[in-house]
């Protein structure tokens, strides 16, 4: 697989260009913390509930808190058909990988017996939804005031028509032989907390995609940081 670095993408972006982003904290005032993250046409709204006593009781861990994520594509958010509400196998897997992506940054030992629940609604989607959900969730956790080792920012890197690119949209994801690689990173620690891949790729291209994602996550983190500063800056 050769990498065509300078080929323009269908929407005119360069390989490492992300779609326009917006981020805002406190969008759900009665939650412990909340945030909106928008990348291109994908919009995620996250709210944190807790830490609170976890019920039913058998779910409680006496030694540490339990982070639970609830990813939810609202019924009108898909391209094409109405999304059937309720948890699918896909949703349950995304919940799991989101928990794994966010847990490394939290000190769950501080909340024995408690549940920290992160609810994310996708209002509109154009690919990269689990990544947008993680990015929004991390900001919501920050607003909730949790002790965090680092932020978490996520992006879908991949390869489209043999070109390694960052932040695929739906058009690119649907291209025959496109490779989708959702990656979440702790941008300052430079550590990966989510890594999945769908599609055929050679090792060298994969390494290139990870490097691209590192850089993309730093850019996304900059947007996260600005949103947090904006909320708490004394004017």
């Amino acid at each position: 697989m050769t990498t065509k670095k300078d080929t323009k993408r269908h929407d005119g972006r360069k390989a490492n260009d992300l779609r326009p982003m917006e981020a805002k904290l406190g969008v759900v005032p009665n939650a412990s913390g909340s945030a909106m993250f928008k990348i291109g046409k994908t919009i995620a709204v996250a709210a944190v509930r807790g830490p609170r006593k976890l019920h039913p009781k058998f779910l409680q861990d006496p030694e540490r808190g339990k982070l639970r994520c609830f990813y939810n594509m609202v019924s009108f958010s898909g391209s094409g058909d109405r999304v059937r509400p309720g948890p699918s196998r896909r949703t349950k897997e995304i919940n799991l990988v989101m928990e794994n992506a966010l847990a490394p940054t939290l000190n769950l030992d501080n909340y024995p017996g408690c549940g920290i629940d992160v609810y994310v609604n996708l209002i509109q989607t154009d690919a990269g939804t689990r990544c947008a959900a993680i990015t929004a969730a991390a900001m919501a956790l920050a607003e909730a005031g949790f002790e965090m080792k680092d932020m978490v920012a996520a992006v879908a890197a991949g390869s489209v028509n043999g070109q390694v690119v960052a932040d695929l949209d739906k058009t690119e994801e649907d291209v025959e032989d496109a490779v989708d690689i959702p990656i979440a990173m702790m941008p300052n620690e430079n550590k990966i907390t989510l890594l999945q891949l769908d599609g055929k790729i050679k090792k060298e291209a994969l390494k290139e995609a990870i490097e691209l994602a590192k850089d993309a996550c730093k850019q996304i983190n900059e947007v996260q940081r600005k949103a947090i500063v904006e909320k708490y800056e004394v004017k």
Partner: protein
Amino acid sequence: MAKIIKEHIHELLSKGLRQDGRGLLEYRKNISVEYGISPKSAEGSARVKIGETEVVAGVKMGIGVPYPDQLDKGTIMVGVELSPIAGDRFESGPPSVESIEIARVVDRGIRESGALDFKKLCIKEGEMVWQVFLDIYPINDDGNLMDACSLAALAAMKDTKLPEFDKKTGLVNYEKKTKDSLPLSDEPLELTVYKINNEFLLDASIEEEKNMDSRLTVAFLKDGTICALQKGGNKEISAEDVVSMLDIANDNVKYLRKAL
């Protein structure tokens, strides 16, 4: 108790040792694949044993309507049922997150590899396609179910012969199998590398799985092309870790392939 085991595992690993005496990157020796374990009823089936870990998988073929966005393609559905038969920690009831993850990762390895030619599973565009129902049942969990399930899935698909299908009536005659196999052009197979306390290891035991920091499951085609990845576990890894884990997986997947 759990703490003592964890410390014990860490201590052993730091010396390059494991509880059962294997080396860190040493897969269990006794791997077996048995084909056609349910030849009367299933279109394809297999039993995989990796040490004491045992998994059975079977394929049933059905006829159905294609997905609206893939009118000329057949479908596949992979299921994994972790029932109490396989171990104390499993409960009956709706599929657990763990079983969904295994099923979806195995599914992804097959689907994204392009090894199964879904177009050849189309009978009449937009109306009638073959559906592949691939169900995997762990019988005894002694660690590393992910790899065992992937191996069993591939073996069951390789064992599959399509049943006779009458185009006019639209009925399948399950009594009669044809000579046609599934349109498999390659053999996607997954291998998992576990990371515990900064050491990499393969083919984890139950205790090692419980105490892992993270794992990376990699699906490979025969020529070494990567076709799916899944990071598991709730600890972070570095990009260098990923590269090392890919290399370890690539070096060892051949060993697992030999069992087929």
